[in-house]
């Protein structure tokens, strides 16, 4: 009988833990991978004037903000939402700050762009790794 109560307890804990967690979202994973490719491609264009790519930047920013909003809307998804915030914030020197810098400076140096792309690449991978684990 003791085991019965132990199992009931385990089930209760299981129910609490599984309902509190976010299930895997293959669409979110696919979009994160696509956003990574598109973001890195656009960053590579920062050797050219920002004004030549304003429309592309706007379109990408809209998609990035949508990804952040989708994550923020999911229950108990604080860690992944914070990861998206780090990527897009203008104070953390990642993608959001890169775009802001491009807009301010007009054109960015090729070496700087390559190194900033490494940072953004890593940051996207950190997000994708979590999404992939959830989808297993």
């Amino acid at each position, binding site marked *: 009988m003791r*085991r*019965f109560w132990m*199992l009931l307890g*385990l*089930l209760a*804990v*299981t*129910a609490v*833990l*599984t309902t509190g*967690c976010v299930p*895997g979202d293959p669409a979110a994973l696919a979009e994160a991978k696509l956003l990574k490719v598109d973001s890195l491609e656009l960053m590579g264009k920062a050797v050219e004037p920002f004004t030549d790519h304003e429309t592309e930047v706007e379109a990408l920013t809209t998609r990035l903000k949508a990804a952040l909003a989708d994550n923020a809307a999911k229950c108990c998804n604080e*860690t*992944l939402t*914070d*990861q998206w915030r*780090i*990527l897009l*914030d203008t104070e*953390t*020197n*990642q993608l959001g*700050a890169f775009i802001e*810098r491009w807009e301010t400076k007009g054109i960015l*140096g090729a*070496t*700087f762009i390559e*190194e*900033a792309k*490494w*940072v953004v690449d*890593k*940051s996207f991978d*950190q*997000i994708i*790794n*979590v999404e992939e*684990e*959830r989808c*297993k």
Partner: protein
Amino acid sequence: MSLEELFEEVFKKIPELAQEYLGGFVEEALSDSKKFCIEIEGRLEKWLGQYQRGELNREELEWLVKSLKSLAHGQLLSEAGIAQARTQNFFEGVLEFLIKIAITALL
């Protein structure tokens, strides 16, 4: 199958499921963290070299160095997110097995 036997089956299965979903997680997390630190160290050396050769200016170097702080924060969040996902998969595995065995035993 009696209720007692059913629970016995579930309890026997738990270590196997724990190994399947959680096994090696700590080692992997430590290895990933070490790999991350080595990568950061290598990148810092690269940036300092680029700065000394004039390929990066001071402002660009400072911008990049500051980005490492947020990248490290992101790494911690990533490890936490992976741990949460694995724990969830483990509990779902236990629940799935319990339901399966209960249906087999009771129907």
